[in-house]
């Protein structure tokens, strides 16, 4: 059923007339023109489609758009502020924590939610938190290093 749905997307209000059963992933990737969230499996297994909804990592391929009504969505495109990359993005670049890059948005956003809840994660916390994000290229070692670096950076930024 086509219905009006409102939410904030990367800090900006959005209002759509859309079938509420459609999955957020497709609406983001087409109507909203944000292709940073990727289709990897369509069934919640890979994490490539991860976005943040009210602070929680959500697999957008499994989230009917009506479930985000009134909520705040953050996608990879919204992580950069005023031309400045988020420390997690900086850390991924520094550690070259990507190869083909197809899992990268999902990795970064999952890490973002993880660090919001647990600003000083151990390596084990990071492995556990990212366990269900798949990467075929085998960037795992670098992703762990990047998240550790980002955590340290963010802590320093808070202290400053």
């Amino acid at each position, binding site marked *: 059923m086509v219905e009006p749905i409102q939410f904030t997307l990367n800090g900006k209000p959005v209002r759509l007339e859309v079938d509420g059963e*459609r999955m957020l992933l497709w609406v983001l990737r087409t109507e909203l023109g944000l*292709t*940073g969230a990727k289709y*990897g499996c*369509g069934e919640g297994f890979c994490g490539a489609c991860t976005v943040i909804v009210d602070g929680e990592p959500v697999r957008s391929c499994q989230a009917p758009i009506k479930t985000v009504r009134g909520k705040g969505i953050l996608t990879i495109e919204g992580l950069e502020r005023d031309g400045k990359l988020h420390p997690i993005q900086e850390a991924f670049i520094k550690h070259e924590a990507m190869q*083909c890059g197809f899992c990268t948005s999902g990795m970064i956003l999952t890490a973002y939610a993880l660090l919001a809840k647990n600003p000083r994660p151990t390596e084990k916390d990071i*492995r556990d938190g990212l366990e269900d994000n*798949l990467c075929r*290229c085998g960037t795992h*070692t670098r992703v762990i290093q990047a998240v550790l670096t980002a955590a340290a950076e963010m802590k320093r930024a808070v202290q400053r």
Partner: protein
Amino acid sequence: MSGDNYPDGDRNEVNPTGALRRRDFLKTLGGGLIVVATLPLAGEGLLQEQQARRGGQSAPADFNAYLRVGEDGRVTCYTGKIEQGQGAMTVLPLMLAEELEVAPSTVDLVLGDTDLCPYDGGTVGSQCVRIFGPLLRAAAAEARVVLVEMASEKLNVPVERLRVKDGAVYDLAKPETKVTYAQLVQGKRIERHAAAKPPLKAPADFKVMGWPAPRRDAREKATGRAKYAGDIRVPGMLYASILRPPAHGAKLKTIDASSAEAVAGVRVVRDGDLVAALHEQPDVALAAAAKIKAAYDPSPSVLDDKNIFDHLIKNAAPGRAVAQGGDLAEGAKLAATTIESTFLNSYVAHASIETHAALVEPKDGKATAWVSTQAPFRAKEDVASALGIPSKDVHVIEPYVGGGFGGKSGNPQAVQAAKLAKITGKPVQVMRTRADEFFLDTFRPAAVVNIKSGLAADGKIVFWDYEVLFAGERSSQQFYAIPHHRTVVRGDTFGGGGTTGAHPFGTGAWRGPGSNTNIYARESQIDILAAKAGIDPVEFRLLNLSDERMKRVVRIGADKFGWKPAKAPSGRGTGFACAEYLGTYLSAAAEVAVDKATGKVKVIRMLCAHDSGVTVNPDGAVLQIEGCFTMGLGAAFAEEVHFKNGEVKDLNFDTYQIPRFSWLPKIEAVLVESPQFPISGVGEPAITITQAVLANAVFDACGARLFRLPMTPERIREVLPK
């Protein structure tokens, strides 16, 4: 790292300028990286020209095809290679910058655009650096010579007195007399050519190659700005969802598309076996396709993942000896012990996280196509023939590829998109679902290796009779000093070459084609022989090797790992293997723990000593080695395609398990240099040794020798010594 058991390496530095400086630099890198530069060995490198020739006749000879000096002094590098994560876009500009004498930061790159880039056969088989590299370097070197000649005329200074630095030519006697490339070229094409092709720089003179360079695609990928084929949008486009048969070999009888067509805006197209639902929203097209009722005749296939090996053995192509020496019958007489083994390897999926995608936009009798492919020039032909237009009228633009691993060498999705675009007259995008991706994948072929080998009382291998079915020739030839040996190959590297229909679905190249199977089988057998001889696996290899380059990489690997000699199974869970892959020499050591109750394996650490001549981008090489080891854990322990009667049972990542964070061992890469050998690739070698070294480590841990991959907990439990 300690252990002086296998001293070598560090002491033998020859190239104190480049190598030492580079090494100091590399110390600052993570990942346990160590670079060992060593004395040149006796032996000759392949001629660069010979390599260039292998790059294919169609690669253009004119250097202008590869580079262009802009009016602003920036240099654009053109390559038909693509970036699928392996670092091509980072490493290729380094090679160009080296020979042209410009700063790498002034080099821009155009990849995989068929209108702009020189013809290329495809980004496969670690060819970027190994085969395209010399072509690109030769082009840059010639351009440099021509530019110097032009400068000589302009400055009125003889060529001998001129030097080049950072894109400018200057007079050695009066450095202030200089002219930049940009001033010489003035944005025009360079019309002259060098009288003779200049030689490429020797590794000792490298200023750019061999130094770590940051990934060029990192920022785009970390910000979500990197575009892949499925991300491209053009006005008026339709998304197609294509009907998937229930099984390979099932014939479509009838379809009833009425409920799909009842969805507003949906159009259903049938063209022979191609049935698609199209809509301006991808998910609506997908949902509509699911409503198509189709009846199929059942697949005639009676094969499954259990009976497949008998079937393959019956249907293999006749044998072809690719290497032999001595006399096997003589060898058999010398043997005190003979060991015969059969190794099996399963079908494995590529499982790139990006599924195949393509967008074809026809316009005014021409077409533009964005395709996730490892072979854009092939895609150009494929799209042209599907559209029925000349291939010169098709422009393929290659966005980033979300992982290929050999699985994106054909372009069936581009052909489908082209056909649908032709029928509808609109731009059409096809992006496979994950289930389509598994079903239509060209799997790494299941394969069989038979080895009969004999051991003399002194621990020397005296004969080696090797036969490989369906994995092909690559890495099949043993490199030990065995007097009597034969290697027979039945079928090609991509799983073909047997009776038609030997495989119940498509097979093809998978990262390190053929070699994964061949190296697993050979190095397992070597370990079996070592155990039989009661000799430490590393010592046993050294005893039976004469190739100095291989011995060195074995010693360095063992040393850096801290290998302690012991007869296997020692219960410690350490394994070793060595291999050669398309010119790269490598060894690997691993430590695992096996839970004897469950059969589960935990890999604790892995080390790779990797000699690819000179490593053009050490950063990128380490990343590739880590990636190879991590990806290889899957094929070692879990990945196997289940199927029955043409049906593929694994259609998503719930049942088809690929490596995850919890599987991850500590990984170390040791880059070894052999500047006198041709530069070879880094994107594949380390995966080809992974299964071998882990199989040997599992044996050392618990005495379970696995003759079939993957080494699932059940299979390990079955052969655990009671």
